């Protein structure tokens, strides 16, 4: 079950000893170590990335080119200036900090251990990382790379793995943690919550959307840029993440939506050589077939669909939006015409709490739109094409990234 034969109790004691030292270290040292680790991964000839890329591709079911192109974005936020600001925020928090945090990570997107470990360390908490089934290799390598920069800091991070429900050592480690932070499907998170009696923070199932304003469909050049942005947000990690848009709202009539859908489908095709889709298993392929079949056989007047020959290379459908239904993952998108951005928000209201981000193709100076989106409460509003590269201080789940550590409940 665990990666070493050490008993859970001995493991916890070792982590807590390391945490006592962490609690006294200067903020600057911690930030510098994390930045140096990130830099070691981000340099063009990084040995760590060279080791990780084939492992992540194989475990995660991604194409090697996808991992090469998208993995740096999972680490890059640690190399920016935000780390120090977040560390200062953490040091300023008054709540009792957990000494040991267990973080249960999902496996739909790889590379999550980098920021997860950094958040705990910035809050001076030792952490047990339980990676998703398809992201074990990166997690191990990340901790090794941290040890290569700062052995003392890396001693505060340990990797544990169990399959399915935690039992035995896994359950004991969860019970020993002062805080459990769980990210995953609502079912998985609820099952974990039932097993934990202490502080628990949950990030459940979410999805994202895209919006293209009327100005962006007015001329071919603007539409192309907008479509390329939406296509990139879709293609990254094969649309498996909660920041992947699965609905795209286009301001205008059905014709505008059809034009935008065609442009997005073309952009997805253009992007395929650079970010090729990974292999699909039978279940995933069937999900895409179902989407395509339902669209094709139910198409009414005014509907349109653009399916790439290759199943994973893009399936874009235009519908009326009634009933509103997102596309499944694997580069499928449903495009819905809306009169205005306000109409889109009205449509999304029943799902306000599960929409994590919105990628926007609009005039940069559209203050009214920015205000509307802000009031609606999207945790992340990004320019189309930037949705999958959130800043470190993105309000994941609608709150501060370090809220699980700095807020008492």
């Amino acid at each position, binding site marked *: 079950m665990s990666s070493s034969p050490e008993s859970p109790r001995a493991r916890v004691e070792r982590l807590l000893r390391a945490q006592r030292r962490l609690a006294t270290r200067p903020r600057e040292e911690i930030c510098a170590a994390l930045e140096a680790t990130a830099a070691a991964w981000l340099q063009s000839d990084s040995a760590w990335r060279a080791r990780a890329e084939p492992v992540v591709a194989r475990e995660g079911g991604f194409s090697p080119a996808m991992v090469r192109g998208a993995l740096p974005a999972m680490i890059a936020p640690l190399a920016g200036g935000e780390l120090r600001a977040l560390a200062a925020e953490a040091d300023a928090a008054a709540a009792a900090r957990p000494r040991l945090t267990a973080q249960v990570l999902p496996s739909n997107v790889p590379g999550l251990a980098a920021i997860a470990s950094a958040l705990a360390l910035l809050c001076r908490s030792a952490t047990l990382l339980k990676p998703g089934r398809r992201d074990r290799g990166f997690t191990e390598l990340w901790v090794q790379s941290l040890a290569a920069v700062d052995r003392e800091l890396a001693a505060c991070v340990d990797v544990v793995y169990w399959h399915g429900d935690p039992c035995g050592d896994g359950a004991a480690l969860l019970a020993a943690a002062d805080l459990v932070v769980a990210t995953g499907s609502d079912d998985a998170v609820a099952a974990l919550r039932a097993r934990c009696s202490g502080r628990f923070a949950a990030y459940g199932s979410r999805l994202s959307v895209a919006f293209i304003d009327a100005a962006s469909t007015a001329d071919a050049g603007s539409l192309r840029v907008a479509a390329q942005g939406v296509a990139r947000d879709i293609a990254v990690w094969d649309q498996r993440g909660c920041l992947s848009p699965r609905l795209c709202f286009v301001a205008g009539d059905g014709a505008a939506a059809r034009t935008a859908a065609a442009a997005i489908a073309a952009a997805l095709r253009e992007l395929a050589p650079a970010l090729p889709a990974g292999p699909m298993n039978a279940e995933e392929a069937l999900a895409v077939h179902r989407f395509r*079949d339902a669209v094709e056989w139910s198409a009414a007047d005014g509907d349109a669909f653009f399916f790439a020959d290759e199943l994973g290379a893009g399936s874009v459908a235009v519908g009326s939006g009634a009933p509103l239904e997102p596309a499944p993952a694997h580069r499928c998108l449903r495009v819905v015409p809306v009169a205005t951005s306000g109409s889109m928000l009205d449509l999304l209201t029943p799902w306000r709490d599960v929409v994590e981000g919105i990628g926007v193709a609009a005039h940069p100076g559209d203050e009214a739109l920015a205000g509307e989106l802000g009031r609606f409460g999207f945790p992340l509003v990004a320019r189309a094409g930037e949705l999958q590269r959130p800043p470190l201080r993105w309000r994941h789940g609608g709150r501060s990234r370090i809220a699980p550590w700095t807020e008492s409940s």
Partner: protein
Amino acid sequence: MLTPDPYHVKIESRRRRGAPALPANDSRRFSRAAKPRTRWPLWRRAASVAAVDHVVHELVLRFIERPESADFAPLALAVFAHQFECCPAYQRFCERRGATPRNVADWQRIPPVPIQAFKEVELRCAPAEKVFRSTGTTAGRERRSLHTLPDLRLYRCAARRGMQLFLFPDVARMRLASLIPPADRQPESSLAQMVAWAFEDLAAPGSVYAASPDGADFPRLVEALRRSERDGEPLALLTTTGALIHFLDFARERDLAFRLPHGSRVMDTGGAKGAPRAMSRNGLLHAVWNLFAVPGYFFVNEYGMAELSSQYYDSVVRDRFDGRHRARHKAAPPWLRTAILDPQTLQPAAPGARGLICHYDLANAGTAFAVLSEDVGRFGDDGLELLGRAAGAEARGCSLSVAQWHELARENDGGVVVS
């Protein structure tokens, strides 16, 4: 220059004379249609679509009754041509794939209709004589498949012949007991209809429906089983797998056991739908032997779909009748062919590889000949192995599924605040 076809000439000449059409059962009408010619596809020789409609159905019926009377391939192409001509939705579907009767020369290249299509449109070549719906246990009534049959004779003939081939190859009639309700109680169930025809065509005196308005009538089944024990008349139990498992539990709670006469048999179908618990096939084989004294070679699992008119059966009774020793596998009648398709490309999978099961069912002549299921299977050394239903899983982890999306919408409609 098309080759003149005698029976079409006859139809045309009667029409020109203004003579009434021959009755459907008039032997003169199809006496020359025993075997389709392969020189030209049938649709190219047709005098009219209507003539093909009827001729194709008659040819298929004849093939089902006497498979040695014709070849599958030309008949399949004739059925495709008929469906292409008469079903606009299917025609559009084929044209988008560049497939027409003019360029499809191999029946395995006929575009298969995904079962999703049966949920969206009525696929039929003529007005429906009867409509069946799938049980749709998971996605709700609105997502149930609709199978609209213009010619019920095809389904009836295929169902009867299938049972004769694989369930009753050794007897003309047998006493039946059914845990599947009569068709008048489940008029939209193709399974109930099939069982009703079995009662009409294959049942011996003393056959009973052991189903009440509320479901299975187990005391009535016990009575039928005891009667067979007493009078030595073999009995065939027709049941869903779910009802069978319920009956196993019912019998165990009451410490019941039966010793049915040799030749008695059990046919179950429908997978785990409605079952109180899951049971493996081996577990069921063991339990059926213990409860009924029916050996494994008389325990047949049927695999059918609401979207098909023909069924697969475990080969065991047929193999025993033919004196063959093979592992249990799913066998299809001659008018039903199968391909395993790669889930990603929908091209034929490598030999022995897992894939989606595609059915080519001549008895579906009035609806869709080629049907792509969501069931996973593979061809083993002995034949088709069913490996279960593909879930159609989307990405999970922190990514919201479409099902969760709809669940939230329903909760909001019901006034439940989502937090």
